[in-house]
């Protein structure tokens, strides 16, 4: 029985099988792509550290010089690039907070030269307690790519050796996102 319905069904099945195969092949080409993101160690300064609603909050400023354009392949739709801080306290061994993020939709937008990067709303570097003083912390630059079709890829580069100030310091007036206290 070869009616239009059966031919349509066969055509649809063949087309979707081919498309699925092409999507898998496109993802396989991503695996062979060597990406080499260049990220310079940022200078980080703690501009202020104060108690807000009973929790320590630090106001950071850093410079970001990074070239993540090599993340992009023909199958990359966007790269989500972010900066995050990581620290330890006595009660919580792992604390992570994203400080800043950027969506790059092509390789050109993944070249970053930001000499005065502040913590971006609604991100905050806030501890769950009052244990930030004098603590060391890490700053990492991370990324995650979204393909046109296929697997997502993620990575990050971590920089250590930073330290919160050992005393609370008022937050300067010019700091963006400064809470009124």
């Amino acid at each position, binding site marked *: 029985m070869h009616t239009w319905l059966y031919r349509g069904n066969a055509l649809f099945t063949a087309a979707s099988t081919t498309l699925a195969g092409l999507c898998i092949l496109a993802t396989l080409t991503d695996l062979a792509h060597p990406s080499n993101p260049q990220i310079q160690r940022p200078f980080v300064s703690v501009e202020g550290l104060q108690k807000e609603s009973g929790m320590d909050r630090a106001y950071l400023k850093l410079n970001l010089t990074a070239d993540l354009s090599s993340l992009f392949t023909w199958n990359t739709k966007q790269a989500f690039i972010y900066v995050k801080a990581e620290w330890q306290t006595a009660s919580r061994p792992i604390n992570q907070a994203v400080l800043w993020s950027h969506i790059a939709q092509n390789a050109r937008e993944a070249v970053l030269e930001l000499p005065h990067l502040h913590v971006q709303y609604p*991100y905050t570097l806030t501890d769950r307690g009052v244990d930030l003083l004098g603590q060391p912390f890490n700053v990492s630059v991370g990324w995650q790519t979204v393909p046109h079709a296929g697997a997502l890829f993620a990575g990050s580069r971590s920089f250590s050796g930073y330290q919160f100030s050992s005393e609370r310091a008022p937050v300067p007036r010019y700091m963006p996102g400064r809470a009124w206290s």
Partner: protein
Amino acid sequence: MIGAIKAQVQSTIDEFTSMNFRQLLLQGTNLGLIVTSALMIWKTLILVTGSESPVVVVLSGSMEPGFYRGDILFLNMGTAPVRAGEVVVFSLDGRDIPIVHRVIKVHEKSHEDLDILTKGDANYGDDRALYNPGQKWLQQEHIMGRVIGYLPYVGQVTIIMNDYPYVKYGLIGALAVFVLTSKE
């Protein structure tokens, strides 16, 4: 067009009336096999990924321009704890529809006891406004999986089927007729 549909319906009816009991039984078994194998594939995916819902359809624009409404995401739970920067799917207590957003804060006491805050890439603020009243953090048990794969547009089919249930019934009916009448 209408003539073609009439001819199709007539030939389908003829197909059924010309069948004897054994043939009908065989075709019924075929249909059952297809349904159960689909179920088996889904359950195997759940087992392998460790996620209770390994494939989800994006329903909102809060992760644009990465994920649009109607795109499909593949999830994996894995054993590693959730970290800031990952995209996770979470479901809030008492709500049916899971949400796909990015983790922006993690405060971890142990691998089982951690507080998570999320945000949609396209949203201005974080997700506290979305959580249940008084809820400030997500816990591990809210997380259904992290996103590992992406396929555009395909989920549009399920959105249409949910918005117009008759399309769904029509498709299921057509598939059943296909399986029952095909002689191979």
